[in-house]
């Protein structure tokens, strides 16, 4: 027997009413899922910003529900195949890598390789400083995004710390990320990396603190023992004299070391730092210039040259000029810097 029209109307009205009841329940469930960390908002804007064509793959993967991990694994195998074909496929690899991270953001390996691919492989593919800046920024952003998905493991913090240390040469920023990685079970070398970063900065007191920490943690740590001996012999005398305000004696002490190793980056950084502390900005500028000339990768020296030249109203040659993206990075690090309390 068919339902009468009014019965049907009542029925449909009830359905609509129930659908309306569902909405607040659904909103509460959605909100709870985000607040309780059961679900992260869909990174739709990131997909579109990065590669609009990737959206179909990601939607398909999402529709597969629990099979996203497997789909990501298959795509990763495809990426390896592209990789093996050589350099011509590196930008294609990048898209596949990015899709893998969107499909399975809890898989750490693709984040690490994506960050490294952007900041290292693709970086050297171009000579345009602007483009390089974009690639480096994308590499850093990829690693930070990876950390937001995987905050409970040391790996991506360490990877980001290394990118700042080795590629951007922003040692202050590098130490922040290396220190963040220490909250979780981590390999021993990360503690030494912090000391190395402070050596390069240069901040010998903090470098020594960290080497001491490494030795307390593991008295058999030969690397830390060797590094602390070198630091004490080569740089510490000059550093202590500088701290005592005896700048000329400090310069003599560091020059003794530079006579043996004139291109030593740490020695040059220490010397330039002593000049800065003594208020001898021009000599500091010249020393940073030397450091920038002897090491093509010494971006900190380039930044210092740019900074001091601007301060002294002097022109900077294009080869000495730090790329814009690095200037922005260092300025941003300075703005974000938290006043230090204590040494470690």
């Amino acid at each position: 027997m068919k339902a009468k029209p009014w019965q049907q109307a009542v029925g449909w009205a009830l359905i609509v009413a129930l659908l309306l009841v569902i909405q607040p329940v659904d909103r509460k469930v959605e909100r709870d899922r985000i607040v309780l960390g059961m679900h992260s908002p869909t990174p739709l804007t990131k997909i579109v910003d990065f590669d609009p064509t990737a959206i179909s793959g990601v939607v398909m993967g999402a529709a597969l529900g629990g099979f996203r991990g497997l789909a990501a694994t298959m795509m990763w195998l495809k990426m390896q195949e592209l990789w093996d074909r050589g350099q011509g496929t590196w930008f294609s690899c990048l898209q596949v890598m990015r899709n893998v991270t969107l499909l399975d953001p809890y898989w750490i390996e693709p984040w690490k390789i994506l960050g490294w691919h952007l900041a290292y492989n693709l970086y050297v593919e171009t000579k345009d400083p602007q483009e390089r800046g974009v690639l480096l920024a994308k590499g850093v952003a990829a690693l930070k995004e990876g950390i937001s998905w995987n905050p409970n493991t040391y790996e991506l913090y360490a990877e980001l710390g290394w990118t700042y240390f080795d590629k951007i040469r922003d040692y202050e920023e590098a130490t922040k990320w290396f220190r963040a990685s220490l909250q979780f079970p981590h390999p021993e070398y990360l503690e030494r990396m912090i000391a190395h970063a402070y050596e390069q900065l240069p901040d010998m007191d903090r470098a020594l603190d960290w080497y001491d920490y490494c030795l307390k943690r593991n008295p058999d740590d030969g690397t830390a023992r060797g590094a602390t001996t070198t630091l004490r012999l080569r740089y510490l005398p000059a550093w202590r004299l500088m701290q005592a305000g005896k700048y000329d004696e400090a310069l003599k002490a560091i020059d003794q070391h530079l006579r043996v190793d004139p291109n030593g980056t740490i020695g040059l950084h220490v010397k330039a730092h002593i000049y800065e502390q003594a208020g001898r900005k021009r000599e500091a500028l010249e020393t940073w210039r030397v450091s920038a000339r002897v090491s093509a990768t010494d971006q900190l020296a380039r930044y210092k040259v740019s900074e001091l030249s601007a301060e002294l109203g002097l022109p900077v040659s294009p080869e000495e000029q730090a790329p814009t993206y690095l200037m922005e990075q260092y300025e941003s690090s300075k703005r974000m810097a938290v006043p230090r309390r204590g040494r470690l």
Partner: protein
Amino acid sequence: MRAIYRVATATFHEAWRRRFLNAILIFAVLIIGSSWSLAYLQPGAELKLLIDIGLGSTRFFGMLIAVFLGVRLISDEIEKRTIHTILTKPVTRAQFLLGKFFGSWATVMSNMLLMSLAFYVVFMIKAPGFLLKTGGTPGEGPGIATEFLYSNIAKALGLTLVEMTVVTALAVMASTLFSWIMAAIFSFFVYFVGQVANFFKSLANPEHGAGTLSQVIFRLLYGILPHFEVFDMREAILKGTYVGWETLGMHTGLGLLYTVVILGIAYLAFMNREV
């Protein structure tokens, strides 16, 4: 109630005699049983992939069973004209529909329980080894938080049961509207689109360049589609987030509301259908 129970019992027994459903179940148990071997495809993240494949297979094959079983319930009876015999007895259409739903639901649940059991057994055997392999200890395993791992897995399986209740209702509804092939296509479509319902919400956002018409369409789609993704607890498992009973209750309540709405639509459609 008696009529509903009888139709449900008959549906349950009939469903277990369907060979293709048994084949899907056997295949699913085999895949779940061997999921640990596929886990090696992600070196260093074996445990994560084991959970992915195990839970994913349980959901996917559960959905296949629910759809293929549900879509044939009413349409088969109409095509074979056996529905006339049943409806001439003192069985109303509502009782028939509910009996069919509960019968297929019981079948899907029993299948799901077998798959869940297979997954839990594999998980209990392989998880400790994978955890050790990645150098993890409870609470600090790299890449996967393990605080509430075992209880969360059980809760995830529980939510999958709720999800399959909704899918069964969806397939039964589709079976009252279309032929079984069309009903199957419709059910799969709604299930897959429901998995990405959140995308519609994002697409409806004017910040993403959606026009007024697109906003209306996407909001409407988001409003009426069941959001199957809310039954996916994988993220909570990986983060080691404790999923409380209250949260689980809310999710279950939402699932039951979806089921009631879908069965309501099925009832209205079935009442008007010429058989």
